[in-house]
C-alpha cells in the first residue's frame, strides 16, 4: 500500500520484538524500545494512525512482502542484495559489528585469531552474512535465532566468539552481569540501518524520509536515543 491508502487506514509497522533495546516486550507485556518510539514519532509527523506489532524475524520479511505490514522499523541493515527485494528509506542509525569473547579468553585478539574457532552470529543480522562470507575456510560458523541464545552459547562455551551489532550487546551487559568482553579487532564494516518498505511505494518513502529529517531536526530523535541507547550517544 502506498501513502494514500495508509492514510485511510492505519500504518502497519513491524519489528521483531526480541531485540532490546530496539524492540522488545517488557515484563508488563508492552512492546517497547527505540524502534517503537521512532515509529511512533514518525507516524505523528506523517499524521497517520500507527499500529506497531512484532513478528518473528524468520517471518518478518514474508510479512512485509506479503503486504501484512507497510514498513519494518526493525533495525534492518541496508545491503545491496536486500535492496533488490525491498526499498529502504534513508538510514535512521548505523550499526557497527563487534567481536565478543568470554572474559577468560586470552587467545583471541584479532580476526586472524578466529581461525579454527567456533564463531556465532544471529540470523538476519548483517554480522551473520559477514561472518559466513568471510569465514569460509577460516572459522566455523554457527547461526543463532537470537541474541539471548547466542550469548548463552558464548557463556557456556559452545562458541568461542560471537560477532554481533555492538549496541544491543552493550545494553544487555549493563542490565546483566555477563562475563564477556568486546575485543578490539580493528575496523569492521558498519552498515546503516533503515526502514524497509515494499518496492515501488514512492509516496510512502518520501513521507518517511521527510518525517525522519524532521524528528532529527527538532530533537525528538536525540531524545529517543538518550532514552534507549544512552545519554548523548551518537549512533548516526
Amino acid at each position, binding site marked *: 500500500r502506498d501513502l494514500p491508502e495508509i492514510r485511510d487506514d492505519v500504518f502497519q509497522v513491524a519489528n521483531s520484538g526480541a531485540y532490546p533495546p530496539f524492540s522488545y*516486550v517488557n515484563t508488563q507485556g508492552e512492546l517497547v524500545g527505540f524502534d517503537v518510539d521512532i515509529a511512533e514519532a514518525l507516524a505523528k509527523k506523517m499524521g497517520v494512525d500507527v499500529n506497531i506489532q512484532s513478528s*518473528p524475524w524468520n517471518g518478518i520479511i514474508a510479512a512485509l512482502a506479503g503486504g*501484512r505490514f507497510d514498513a519494518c522499523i526493525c533495525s534492518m541493515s541496508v545491503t545491496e542484495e536486500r535492496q533488490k527485494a525491498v526499498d529502504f528509506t534513508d538510514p535512521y542509525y548505523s550499526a557497527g559489528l563487534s567481536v565478543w569473547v568470554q572474559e577468560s579468553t586470552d587467545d583471541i585478539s584479532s580476526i586472524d585469531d578466529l581461525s579454527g574457532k567456533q564463531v556465532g552470529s544471529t540470523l538476519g543480522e548483517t554480522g551473520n552474512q559477514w561472518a559466513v562470507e568471510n569465514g569460509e575456510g577460516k572459522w566455523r560458523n554457527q547461526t543463532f535465532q537470537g541474541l539471548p541464545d547466542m550469548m548463552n552459547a558464548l557463556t557456556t562455551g559452545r562458541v568461542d566468539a560471537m560477532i554481533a551489532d555492538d549496541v544491543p550487546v552493550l545494553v544487555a551487559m549493563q542490565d546483566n552481569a555477563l562475563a564477556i568482553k568486546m575485543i578490539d579487532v580493528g575496523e569492521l564494516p558498519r552498515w546503516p540501518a533503515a526502514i524497509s518498505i515494499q518496492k515501488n511505494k514512492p509516496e510512502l518513502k518520501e513521507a518517511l524520509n521527510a518525517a525522519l529529517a524532521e524528528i532529527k531536526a527538532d530533537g525528538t530523535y536525540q531524545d529517543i536515543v538518550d532514552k534507549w541507547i544512552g545519554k548523548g550517544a551518537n549512533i548516526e
Partner: protein
Amino acid sequence: MDFDLMVEVTPLLIRAAWVTIDISSRAIFFGFFVACGLVFLQTFRFAPIRWFARGYISVVRGTPYFVQLLLVFYGGPSLGLRLDPVTCGVVVGAFNIGAYMSEAIRGSIESVDKGQSEAARSLGFGKAHTMVSIVLPQAASLMIRSVGVLAIVLVKNSSLVSIISVVELTYQAQRLIGSTYKPLEIFTLSALMYIVIIYAVMGIIELAYRRATRYTTQ
C-alpha cells in the same frame, strides 16, 4: 532462579497459553472432521474423487506446515481469502492435521479383522452402517491413540503460527527472553504450561481409550 521475574511474567504467559489452547482446540476439532471427510472420499468408487483425496493427503503431509501457513496467509488474499492470523492458524492447522488424522483413521480401520465386516455385511448392513456399528468401535482403540498423538503434535506445532505474527506461548516466551535474558526461568514456565495443556489432552485420550477397550478387558 529469579522467582520475582517468574511471578511477574506469569500472567503474560498465561494469556499467550490461552491463545495456544484456543487455536489448537479449534484446529483439532475441525481437523477431525476434515479427516473424516478425507476418509469418506477415499471410499468413493469414482476414481478421480479418490485421487483427489490421496493427492491432498500427499501434498499436505509432504510440505512443511509453516510454508502452508505463509502461503494461505499471504497468498490467500489474492484469491479473495482474507483471514485474520488466528483464524488462519485454525484453518491451516485443521486442514493440515486433518490429512494426518485421516491416515491414522484409515490405518486403524484396516487393522480390524475382515471377517467382522463380512459378518455385518452378510446381515444386510450397508457399507456405512457396517463402518459405524461394527468396524469403528473395534478400530477405536488404535484410532484414539493415533489421533491423540496427532492432537498432541498439533498443540506443539501451534507455535509455528507465530510466523504469521500470532503471539502464542512459545513466541511470547522468546520475546520475553529477548528482553530479560533469563531463558531458564521463562522456558521453565512455558514448559510447565505446555505440560499442563498436553497432560490434559493425554488424560482425555486415556479416558477415551479405556472406554473404547472396555469389552476386551472385561
